[in-house]
């Protein structure tokens, strides 16, 4: 492993002089009203505090989270990886390989016990003793549990680690299982999405390394700052929804005018994510802006909440795929027919018994 790099080292490497550094410490201490020794304390902290070590592991996944992460614009991913955190292990992008790479895990575990962040992309399959995902000669689930033991916190990247995603969609043959169902004794932050937005990923990392703790999480373990509102709540097409202007077909007038995609199966009303505010690729666009509904990729089991292009979700319990309207109308129809039949039978019975009374 490389020599421990402190924040001071990084600051100097970025071309900041020692003089500017001490001025920064004095100004910060003065503005925070910290008293005469404050400046020295800040300088000492920055000179000795190590960059937070991050171990980035990959289970069953497609690497779309990594692909997204490396495209972050604010902050640039190079600043995150080279200056803010110490990305000590990431088998997809690291130079080391084989035993050399695996040795880093052991070393981090011992040296930074309880101090490193375990970022997990993908999830462990539990079926057949975990043999559907072998990493370094061992089932991934074992490696995950082993590294989680001494971690400060765990980041569950993407829909895979947070919910299970496509490999956990029915019938889930490998029994792919989200991180929080495997690790129970560590703080876990879910950053769902398939993939999550690049700036959301780096934003979460920035927060944790800056404050040394997890950001405020919602009921489901997602950071509130990015996942507390639905796509629908901040969608720029929302006025068309409220007005009742919907795209009914992909090539109709409403599609050209950019009306609401609700009827085309947009899952924006049930999807918590920051797409409609942060957007993608440096704020260029997001699915709805490109004319396609949201598929709800940051939600639990979104593959099984299809179809993507209809508002009402299919229900599979009835053998063939039916939605709530089809099932409900069928049930109401059967009961309605039964009521009519019963009423007819009642009338017939009454006439017959009346005739009997007369004849008697």
């Amino acid at each position, binding site marked *: 492993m490389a020599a421990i790099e402190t924040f001071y080292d990084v600051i100097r490497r970025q071309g900041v002089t020692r003089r500017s550094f001490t001025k920064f410490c004095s100004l910060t201490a003065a503005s925070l009203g910290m008293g005469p020794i404050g400046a020295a304390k800040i300088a000492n902290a920055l000179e000795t505090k190590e960059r937070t070590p991050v171990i980035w592991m990959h289970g069953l996944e497609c690497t779309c989270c990594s692909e997204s992460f490396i495209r972050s614009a604010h902050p640039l991913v190079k600043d995150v990886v080279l200056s803010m955190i110490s990305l000590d292990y990431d088998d997809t992008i690291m130079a080391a390989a084989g035993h050399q790479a695996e040795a880093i895990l052991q070393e981090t575990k011992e040296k930074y016990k309880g101090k490193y962040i375990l970022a997990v992309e993908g999830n462990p399959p539990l079926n057949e003793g975990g043999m559907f995902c072998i990493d370094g000669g061992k089932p991934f689930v074992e490696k995950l549990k082993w590294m989680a033991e001494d971690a400060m916190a765990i980041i569950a990247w993407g829909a895979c680690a947070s919910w299970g995603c496509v490999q956990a969609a029915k019938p889930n043959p490998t029994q792919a299982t989200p991180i929080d169902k495997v690790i129970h004794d560590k703080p876990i932050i879910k950053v769902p999405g398939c993939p999550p937005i690049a700036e959301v990923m780096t934003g979460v990392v920035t927060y944790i390394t800056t404050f040394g703790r997890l950001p405020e999480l919602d009921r*489901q373990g997602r950071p509130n700052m990015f996942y507390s509102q639905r796509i629908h709540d901040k969608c720029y097409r929302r006025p068309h929804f*409220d007005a*009742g*202007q*919907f795209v*009914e077909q992909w090539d109709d007038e409403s599609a050209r005018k950019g009306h609401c995609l609700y009827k085309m199966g947009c899952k924006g009303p*049930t999807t918590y994510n920051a797409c409609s505010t942060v957007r993608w690729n440096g704020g260029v666009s997001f699915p709805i802006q490109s004319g396609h509904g949201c598929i709800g990729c940051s939600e639990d089991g979104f593959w099984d909440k299809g179809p993507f292009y209809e508002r009402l*979700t299919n229900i599979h319990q009835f053998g063939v795929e039916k939605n*709530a309207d089809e099932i409900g109308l069928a049930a109401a129809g059967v009961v309605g027919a039964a009521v009519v039949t*019963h009423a007819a039978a009642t009338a017939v019975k009454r006439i017959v018994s009346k005739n009997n009374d007369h004849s008697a």
Partner: protein
Amino acid sequence: MTDISRIDVADSHGERVVSQPTVYVYEAPVRLWHWLNALAILVLIVTGYLIGSPLPTVAGEASQHFVMGYIRFAHFTAGQIMAVGFLLRGYWAFMGNEHSRQIYYVPVWRASFWKELAHEIRWYAFLEKAPKKYVGHNPLAQTAMFAMYTLMSAFMIVTGFALYSEGEGADSWEAKLFGWVFYIWPNSQEVHTWHHLGMYVIVTFIIIHIYAAVREDIMSRQSIISSMVSGERHFKDGA
């Protein structure tokens, strides 16, 4: 015709014979609640269906219309009225007469309940010549009322407020009180689906409810429909 000597008037608590042919059953708050609730549910069903399957697109500028907005407003308002009504009706179960408590339980521990339930099923299967008369609900009606109305309403109110809390925000009282629904179904699309299916249970209930009320009004020689207006139950062959 029905043999007058066979009429035995019983209430839900057994076979106690009521001598007078007219009994005050439904107190004013119950009747008021019934009709307000019926209206609210009608609005909820129509608007709820239109939220799931919206009306055709309206032309013109978005600023000129608020179609979906009004539909949702009507749905939320009717939902709030139904919820408040549900609470007040629950309060009245404690304050009102014994009939006001009937829809909140099914007396499965009572042997007579099962006997009368079996009789009621046979009556609807045309196997009994004459129905028994009840001051309140008959056992079959009580069971249907409890399962398909009371429990379903509670389910719809809870899931409805949980869905409403999504728009109100994570720090709203709705989210604090009903947000736990998303522990059960983390994806709110699933809550939508259950809420939607719940509507059809209530639609089915309404079909049975109205049919049974009309039929019993005619067949069992006692007032049913007008009782929910006047509060009094007349036994047409009595005394």
